[in-house]
């Protein structure tokens, strides 16, 4: 082996001398962590017959993890084959780093279960989804128990927090609710007007927009806005508290997190949603009126009177009931997913996403059920 020829850039390299039974590995040059650093796997075959391996450094200008990594591989392989490794020719620092690597015996690596096949995967997903329902029912039960404590004045929560939650849900949601309700009212008015104008019945835009918005659309839009705005926020807030073990801290104080965190949020939404729904309905009607009067030449007073005669109290009642139900479901989904959150940043993201999806899913299911029920009852 020739030790004189080192390339001018001093890259880390390896020289092997000695016999096949007692090889010596020499680290030379500057061992720096780069792609072309010598790897043990490449020279392992040359040590196949070795009984004793010596490692050492000659003209080793500097070294980093790459050298330690190489030597650790040599030692690990030698140990597995019961071969002695002589490290006496290594610099002190390298020898100590090697000792550190093997200081703590590694536990057997954790067995990762094999990935399930497609059929098994489908089955697992269904089971997982199925197990979600009992959890939801249990959570609903806990909320009802907590409501009982709240009504009898035994629930612990902070009034200041409750006021903040009310403000966050209600007044601060007004701009986005206004914008979306106005636009949806506009769309309804346009869609209806084009058809109604064919029959010369443009005045009935007032009925269409009035009943449609107040009965269905205002509640639905408010529900969906709240799912994205408030349900997601609830899941993220409670989920982050879960990550930081804040929920556990509450529990150990004997404070029920349902009383302290969930119930105030549910109640804040349930109190504010009817107000928001009513407001959204009025904005929607104003939007319809604006379009009818400005674009389709309906008289302002005509439209006003038609709206008044079309709208009955029961329409408002239906809208408000629906809105309240949607609000409750959104809060339920947000808090449930927050409480179910795992202990990582990614888990918070997942529970937030899931809160919005579940919220909208529950809104849609309950909307169908309520519509059919009200139809059957003739309301």
């Amino acid at each position, binding site marked *: 082996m020739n030790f004189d020829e080192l390339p001018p850039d001093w890259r880390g390299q390896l020289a092997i001398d000695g016999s096949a039974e007692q090889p010596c590995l020499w680290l030379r040059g500057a061992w720096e962590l*780069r792609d072309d650093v010598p790897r043990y796997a490449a020279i392992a075959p040359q040590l196949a017959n070795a009984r004793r391996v010596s490692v050492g450094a000659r003209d080793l200008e500097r070294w980093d993890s790459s050298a330690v990594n190489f030597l650790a591989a040599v030692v690990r392989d030698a140990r597995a084959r019961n071969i002695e490794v002589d490290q006496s020719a290594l610099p002190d620092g390298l020898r100590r780093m090697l000792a550190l690597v093997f200081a703590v015996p590694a536990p057997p690596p*954790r067995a990762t279960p094999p990935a399930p096949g497609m059929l098994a995967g489908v089955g697992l997903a269904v089971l997982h989804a199925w197990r979600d329902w009992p959890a939801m029912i249990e959570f609903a039960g806990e909320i009802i128990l907590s409501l009982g404590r709240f009504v009898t004045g035994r629930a612990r929560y902070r009034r200041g927090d409750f006021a903040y939650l009310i403000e966050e849900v209600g007044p601060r949601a007004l701009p986005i609710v206004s914008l979306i309700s106005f636009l949806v009212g506009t769309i309804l008015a346009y869609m209806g007007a084009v058809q109604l104008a064919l029959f010369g019945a443009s005045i009935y835009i007032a009925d269409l927009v009035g009943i449609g918005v107040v009965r269905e659309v205002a509640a639905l839009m408010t529900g969906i806005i709240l799912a994205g705005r408030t349900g997601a926020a609830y899941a993220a807030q409670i989920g982050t508290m879960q990550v930081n073990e804040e929920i556990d801290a509450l529990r150990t104080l004997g404070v029920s997190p349902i009383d302290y965190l969930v119930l105030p949020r549910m109640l804040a939404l349930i109190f504010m949603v009817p107000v928001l729904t009513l407001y959204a309905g009025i904005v929607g009607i104003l939007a319809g009126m604006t379009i009818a009067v400005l674009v389709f030449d309906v008289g302002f007073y005509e439209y006003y009177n038609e709206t008044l005669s079309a709208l009955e109290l029961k329409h408002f009642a239906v809208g408000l009931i629906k809105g309240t139900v949607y609000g409750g479901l959104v809060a339920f989904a947000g808090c449930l997913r927050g409480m179910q959150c795992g202990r990582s940043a990614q888990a918070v993201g997942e529970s937030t996403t899931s809160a919005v999806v579940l919220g909208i899913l529950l809104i849609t299911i309950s909307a169908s059920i309520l519509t059919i029920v009200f139809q059957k009852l003739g309301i």
Partner: protein
Amino acid sequence: MSAAQSKQAAPHIEIRNLTMAYGDYVIQRDLDFTINRGDIFVIMGGSGCGKSTLLRQMIGLVRPAKGTVLYDGVDYWAASPAQQVQRQRGFGILFQAGALWSSLTLAENVALPLQEFTTLAPDLIDEIVSLKLSLVGLGGFEQFYPSEISGGMKKRAGLARAMALDPEILFFDEPSAGLDPLSSRRLDDLILELRDSLGATVVLVTHELPSIFAIANNSVFLDADTRTMIAYGDPRELAEHGVEKVRTFLKRGAA
């Protein structure tokens, strides 16, 4: 004098006339000290005196209100953003609570700096990651998530990540906080061992007296009342011959 020589000649880290403030509120003023290559340097002081803030200004997270930090004689805060990033790549930082990325496994946590800043092949990165975890005694825990391991293990995993890129300077923010005396001692030994074998410079923020005496060879004491440094030197010397306040601190009020 060649560039390499001047690099050797300048002290590794210099704090020059540094003042830290939040708005008008001055936390510490006129800090002036030098950290040499291979030092284990402790920034000590009572709670709330600005130790961690000083560390954050040294690692480039917060700009000092006045004064600056020099690395190898180069002014960090006067350098271009690209040069600052280059410099930061030579830092290994262990945050107070480990600051592991909770949605990544330990292996992925350690691998991330290597994947971002090197062009190494994936299998070589895997080897280096296992090596770093073995170095801190966490071999075999590659596939665990941070939430599944203990506080001391998180600290050590954080150390493995801090060492991923073979840093020139290791910064530790309260490394032994929350560890039992034995784990804390083992971490101290590990820090010493790493300094000796890698030749890195170590900067520690701590008020754990056993750690300070066991590993530090130089230190600075930040005083919360006068809002400046009142002692600078080997902590063992300061415990005997320092100003009274520092002696009291280093002897747990017994001086």
